């Protein structure tokens, strides 16, 4: 088998430029949405006093979870020694960086005062998970970039095990922090649970792998080299394991947390009579996000399965983040409460265009970083080797 | 091994680019108005009821630190000094329009705005703080 080399993604197809143009246009649209929100205020969005976190946060959390999981393949190749995945290692690392940058873009631009974001550094509250996340994310970016450097440059290749192991450990710490964002909140019965840490780690592994799987044929279409079908099948089987574990932990969260009397009404709302939220839970998370991917992987269609997982993932996070907010808080348990403010009633949340555009803008930022990285550096495996020097490990015959 | 050009030849282009950039950075500002009057009063003069806390040149340099100290004391420690509060500054330095009404920060004649526009530093205070003196209706009684 000829040696696998890496090439700049510059040989293809005229397909790349329209893709870049569209991606850039979506980024610009996202910026326009940000300016609208920043200048006019958040009242132009659907996020209200009852539902302070909305669609942008759903997008941001998905991208951040996927960023951590996108390193799966890189870690399999380096830390776990599965050399069959070596050709994908740089792409996987770059994808992690790109996804995290996209997610952070959304989070920062959604702030009420984004010009003050550096205050989290100057006036740190060390008890705040949010404040810890700022450090966890930046260090992750640095470690992933360092790992990429060791893969790209022969002089640093000896540091590859160090950066690889560090990035691997760090992504679990990071995802634990992301899970605890919600897991430490006592304000809602759904949130206060330690299970959010392993749950979000499981989600991260699932969504990250799914995003990578979906992008493999895309990179092939744009002129890179799509891996052997056998590699995709193996990744598909791995995805199936992650999907199953995610499902198990989700059921555990709902069953164990909401089994208690205090959580029963919320469980009932989400699973039975929550309208859109129930539809998203069953249709999005269970069917599209779990059952259909497992079926598709059995049918040897890992890329389609991954696409279904991604849609299911968005639905999952939407239910987690929004359903828990619209459900009334129990201020006086045992009493029936009502007020002009809407206490005791399910709140209404309808996302408006700035939120959707901000979310898609973040996705476009991630895609833009990914494509730019593939154009500037030798990331994508290619058999049309312009440079005879092999950079990655050779695929074993 | 290809012959490398002598050092000067190699560095000529980057050096030229750097020199060109430095020239632009140094010369373009001179196209604007010259600021020889930084120590001269540039704010709109108002009829103050009395002297300010500090002489004007020192106040110009130190008011940010004073405000910062005052806000930390007031907000975080509950130590309030009406003499050095922002409310007092705004009240004393109020500029009135033709109708006798104090102008807000939106107006170019506002005391803070007139100076800050010149030095091109936007203060963030008036997104939250009222930029005109306290009104006299009941809800605004002095504490």
């Amino acid at each position, binding site marked *: 088998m000829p040696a696998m080399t890496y090439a700049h993604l510059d040989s293809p197809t005229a397909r790349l430029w329209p893709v870049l143009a569209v991606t850039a246009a979506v980024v610009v649209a996202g910026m326009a949405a940000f300016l609208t929100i920043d200048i006019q*205020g*958040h*009242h132009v969005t659907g*996020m209200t*006093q009852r539902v*302070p*976190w909305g669609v942008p946060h759903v997008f941001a959390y998905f991208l951040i979870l996927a960023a951590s999981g996108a390193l799966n393949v890189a870690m399999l190749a380096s830390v776990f020694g599965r050399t069959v995945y070596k050709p994908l290692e740089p792409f996987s690392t770059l994808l992690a960086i790109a996804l995290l940058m996209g997610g952070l873009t959304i989070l920062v631009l959604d*702030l*009420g*005062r*984004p010009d*003050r*974001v550096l*205050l*989290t550094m*100057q*006036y740190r*509250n060390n*008890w*705040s*998970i*949010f404040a810890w996340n*700022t450090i966890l994310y930046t260090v992750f970016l640095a470690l992933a970039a360092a790992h990429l450097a060791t893969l790209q440059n022969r002089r640093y290749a000896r540091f590859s095990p160090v950066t690889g192991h560090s990035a691997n450990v760090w992504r679990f710490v990071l995802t634990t922090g992301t899970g605890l964002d919600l897991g430490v*909140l*006592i*304000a809602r019965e759904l949130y206060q649970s330690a299970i959010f840490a392993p749950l979000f780690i499981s989600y991260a592994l699932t969504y990250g792998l799914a995003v990578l799987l979906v992008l493999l044929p895309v990179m092939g279409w744009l002129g890179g080299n799509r891996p052997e079908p056998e590699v995709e099948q193996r990744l598909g089987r791995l995805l199936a394991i992650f999907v199953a574990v995610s499902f198990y932990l989700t059921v555990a969260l709902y069953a164990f947390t909401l089994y208690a009397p205090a959580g029963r009404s919320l469980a009932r709302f989400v699973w039975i009579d929550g309208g859109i939220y129930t539809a998203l839970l069953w249709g999005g998370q269970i069917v599209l996000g779990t059952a259909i991917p497992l079926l598709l992987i059995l049918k040897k269609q890992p890329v389609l399965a991954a696409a279904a997982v991604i849609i299911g993932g968005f639905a999952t996070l939407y239910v987690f983040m929004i359903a828990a*907010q619209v459900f009334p*808080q*129990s*201020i*006086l348990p*045992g009493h*029936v*409460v*009502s*007020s*002009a*403010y*809407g*206490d005791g009633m399910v*709140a209404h949340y309808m996302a408006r265009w700035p939120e959707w555009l901000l979310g898609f803008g973040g996705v476009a930022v991630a895609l833009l970083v990914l494509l730019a990285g593939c154009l500037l550096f030798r990331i994508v495996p290619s058999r049309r080797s312009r440079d005879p020097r092999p950079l990655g490990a050779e695929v074993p015959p | 091994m290809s012959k490398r050009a002598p050092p000067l030849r190699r560095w000529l282009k980057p050096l030229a680019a750097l020199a060109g950039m430095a020239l632009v950075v140094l010369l373009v500002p001179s196209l604007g108005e010259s600021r020889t009057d930084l120590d001269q009063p540039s704010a709109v003069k108002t009829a103050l009821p009395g002297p300010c*806390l500090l002489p004007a040149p020192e106040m110009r340099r*130190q008011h940010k*630190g004073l405000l910062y*100290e*005052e806000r930390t*004391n007031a*907000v975080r*420690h*509950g130590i*309030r*000094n009406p003499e050095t509060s922002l*409310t007092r500054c705004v009240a004393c330095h109020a500029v009135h329009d033709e109708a006798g009404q104090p102008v807000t920060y939106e107006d170019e004649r506002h005391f803070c705005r007139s100076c800050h526009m010149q030095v091109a530093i936007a203060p963030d205070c008036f*997104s*939250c*703080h*009222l930029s005109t003196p306290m009104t006299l209706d009941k*809800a*605004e009684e002095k*504490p």
Partner: protein
Amino acid sequence: MSAPERMDRRQALKTAFAGLAATVLAPGLMLVEFGTQAKAAATGSRWGLLIDVSRCQGDCAGCVEACSKEHGWHAEGRGGHEPQWIRVIKATDPVTGQTSTVPLMCQHCANPPCADVCPTTATFRRADGIVLVDKHLCIGCRYCVMACPFGVRFFQGDDVQNQRTNSPRGKGTAEACNMCVHRVDHGRLPACVEACAATGGAMTFGDLNDPDSAIRAALAEKAAARLRPDLALAQGVSYQSL
């Protein structure tokens, strides 16, 4: 490099640092004299609010109007975009059918979840028990709004005009009832308590650490409870006749 040259450089550095230190410290020394006049935050106080729900008259809403006027916010209604620092909740016991009206505002917890999660320490608990937002540091992430178990924190999503001088509020920051700190710091009562005294007299404000205060006397008369005691928040606001 000869030895005398190195000595000169060290000397120069020392002078530079001394000069720098002097320049940095001097303004601070000047500021100290301005602070001495003020009344320091009462040390040892724990401000508390006691609400006797049985004295709260259902359709009164005097506290809501007073707070709204004092701080310049306007209630819109159905949990939309307007903050509602204090609101009145109608609570019905499903077993007995009894209804009470409960004014609900920031509970000023001793273990405030909002202050725990704030990344910039903008939301903080003062030494005297009042939980408030230092809007200079707030980045508008709304994590505190997510974290409050009572839904009494709000995010200002629009430009604010005609702010109250004593209650600066602005777009992009979080806010909540601050127990009228600008009044409390000058020895006055919060606006809601003042307004209630004229109608039902359901609210009592005072220093929980002062055994001779009115609030302590009222607490001794009738047992009071906090909302959601299971959360162990040790709120400064407690309710009687709930």
